[in-house]
């Protein structure tokens, strides 16, 4: 092997700012406003979807606050995996790392499937006959974004910033155009949400809607994966994450308002692309094209962010030898975790081309939910082992331990809601994580860099 190294060391490039962090978090999530959230309407009606929206908003505000505090201190790639490693222990870290990789890779596959569906829809609308082969467009979405991620994080997240901003602006323009602020108002909430339509399945419907309420925000915690690549983690991560969750709360509420005011709940609850349908109902060609572009951009931004986050988690686990150390390599020119990016491409392709969309999404949500359940335990242990006067934090979240307790309670409720609709998948997923935990404990842990993995210059934890 040729030895042409000019340096003996290579690491990830620290080039990102708060706007990139925002673009990473919001970019992953915004597709949930364009599609998916509306299944909550199908479960319990429009009011149930609004309650789910704000209920999930509280859950994710807790997630963002907790994440911001811990990540501004544990500023390393791997996000919650690295947090778990330093604060809880190796087995928890291994599980959290897998939650992250599964949640993001499955979401990436779901987004690629959606790209194929969108291209097919446009082809049909433009008069193409005989159906379209969606596979080349699904593969192209994954390959293009993998290539972009491979070539460097700055270009990747700048691309995300641009397309996410366009997708978010499209929602604002749709709201302004249809609500009566600009032009004639077309909202019809009173007629569409009265009588039986108000809460068609009562409070049980509200509970069942919670599952899909997560869609409004699912993935905002992914901002932590940029920790090792931002110029100022202590400032950029809390700022980007908290600005992101506020952006999503606004986008979610506006999305609900526009869609619930234009479509009856029976239709909205089954729509594949509710915001695009709302634009079509407005009768404006401009809005239809804008929201069509917004849907495509939101989908691409989500897949792009997912590749970024899944590869960082896989890379960090490889670097610590939780997985083969081969995955812990950094590209000397592009400064990206290139082997982790390459390894996850075929996995995303297999799921995108071979698995049904609803199953792929369900496994993504379940992995995310397991990750959120870990967070309150993590922050409680963090504050107990390293109280505020022992480690300087970039951000200290208020009212501790109230957000942790609220998050834990909401996670329990969300698990119950998921169990109502996807009990088998939930049990299968938990069995899977138990099996891989046994494998890690009895086999893989012997290869872990036990001494080298704890890198934070912290004092000894209280009580040890």
């Amino acid at each position, binding site marked *: *092997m*040729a*030895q*042409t*190294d000019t340096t*003996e*060391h*290579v*690491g*990830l490039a*620290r080039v990102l700012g708060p706007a990139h962090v925002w673009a990473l978090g919001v970019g992953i999530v915004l597709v949930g406003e364009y599609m998916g959230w509306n299944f909550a309407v199908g479960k319990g009606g429009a009011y149930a979807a609004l309650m789910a929206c704000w209920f999930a908003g509280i859950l994710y505000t807790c997630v963002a606050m907790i994440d911001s505090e811990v990540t501004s*201190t544990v*500023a*390393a*790639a*791997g996000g919650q995996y*690295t947090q778990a490693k330093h604060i809880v222990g190796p087995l928890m870290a291994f599980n959290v790392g897998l939650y992250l990789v599964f949640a993001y890779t499955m979401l990436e596959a779901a987004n690629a499937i959606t790209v194929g569906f969108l291209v097919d829809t446009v*082809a049909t609308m*433009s008069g*193409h006959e005989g159906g*379209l*082969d969606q596979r*080349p*467009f699904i*593969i*192209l979405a994954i*390959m*293009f974004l*993998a*290539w972009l991620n*491979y070539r460097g994080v700055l270009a990747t997240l700048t691309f995300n910033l641009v397309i996410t901003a366009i997708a978010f602006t499209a929602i604002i323009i749709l709201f302004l155009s249809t609500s009566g602020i600009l032009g004639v108002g077309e909202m019809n909430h009173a007629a569409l949400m009265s009588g039986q339509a108000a809460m068609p399945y009562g409070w049980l419907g509200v509970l069942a809607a919670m599952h899909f309420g997560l869609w409004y925000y699912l993935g905002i915690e992914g901002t932590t994966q940029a920790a*090792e690549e931002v110029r*100022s*983690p*202590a400032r950029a991560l809390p700022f980007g994450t908290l600005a992101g969750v506020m952006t999503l709360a606004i986008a979610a509420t506006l999305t609900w308002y526009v869609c619930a005011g234009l479509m009856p709940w029976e239709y909205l609850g089954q729509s594949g692309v509710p915001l695009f349908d709302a634009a079509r109902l407005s009768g404006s060609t401009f809005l239809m094209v804008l929201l069509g572009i917004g849907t495509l951009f939101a989908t691409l931004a989500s897949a792009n962010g997912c590749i970024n986050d899944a590869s960082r988690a896989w890379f*960090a686990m490889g*670097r*610590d030898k939780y997985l083969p*150390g081969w995955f*812990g*390599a*950094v*590209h*000397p*020119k592009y400064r990206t975790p*290139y*082997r982790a990016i*390459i390894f996850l*491409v075929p996995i995303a392709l297999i799921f995108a081309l071979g698995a049904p969309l609803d199953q792929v999404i369900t496994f993504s949500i379940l992995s995310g939910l397991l990750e959120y359940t870990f967070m309150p335990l993590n922050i409680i242990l963090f504050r107990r082992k390293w109280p505020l*006067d*022992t*480690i*300087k934090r*970039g951000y200290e979240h208020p009212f501790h331990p109230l957000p942790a307790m609220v998050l834990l309670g909401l996670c329990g409720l969300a698990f119950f809601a998921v169990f109502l609709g996807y009990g088998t998948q939930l049990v299968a997923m938990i069995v899977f994580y138990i099996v891989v935990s046994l494998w890690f404990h009895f086999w893989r842990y012997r290869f872990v860099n036990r001494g080298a*993995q704890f*890198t*934070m*210059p*912290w*004092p000894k934890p209280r009580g040890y």
Partner: protein
Amino acid sequence: MDLWDVLELAAWGASALFGLFIVIDWIRTDSTYSEDMLTSSREGELEAMTEESHRG
């Protein structure tokens, strides 16, 4: 063959190009640099608050 049939073929071709670029660069990188250098990244070396992490 209409525009969409052409776009299908273009998508296959572009996917192959992106894949080819990644694989060629991957092989070239792995054969040019030593494994020790490629895996030399260490967590915490970029820690932002290293010198300020202890308050008391």
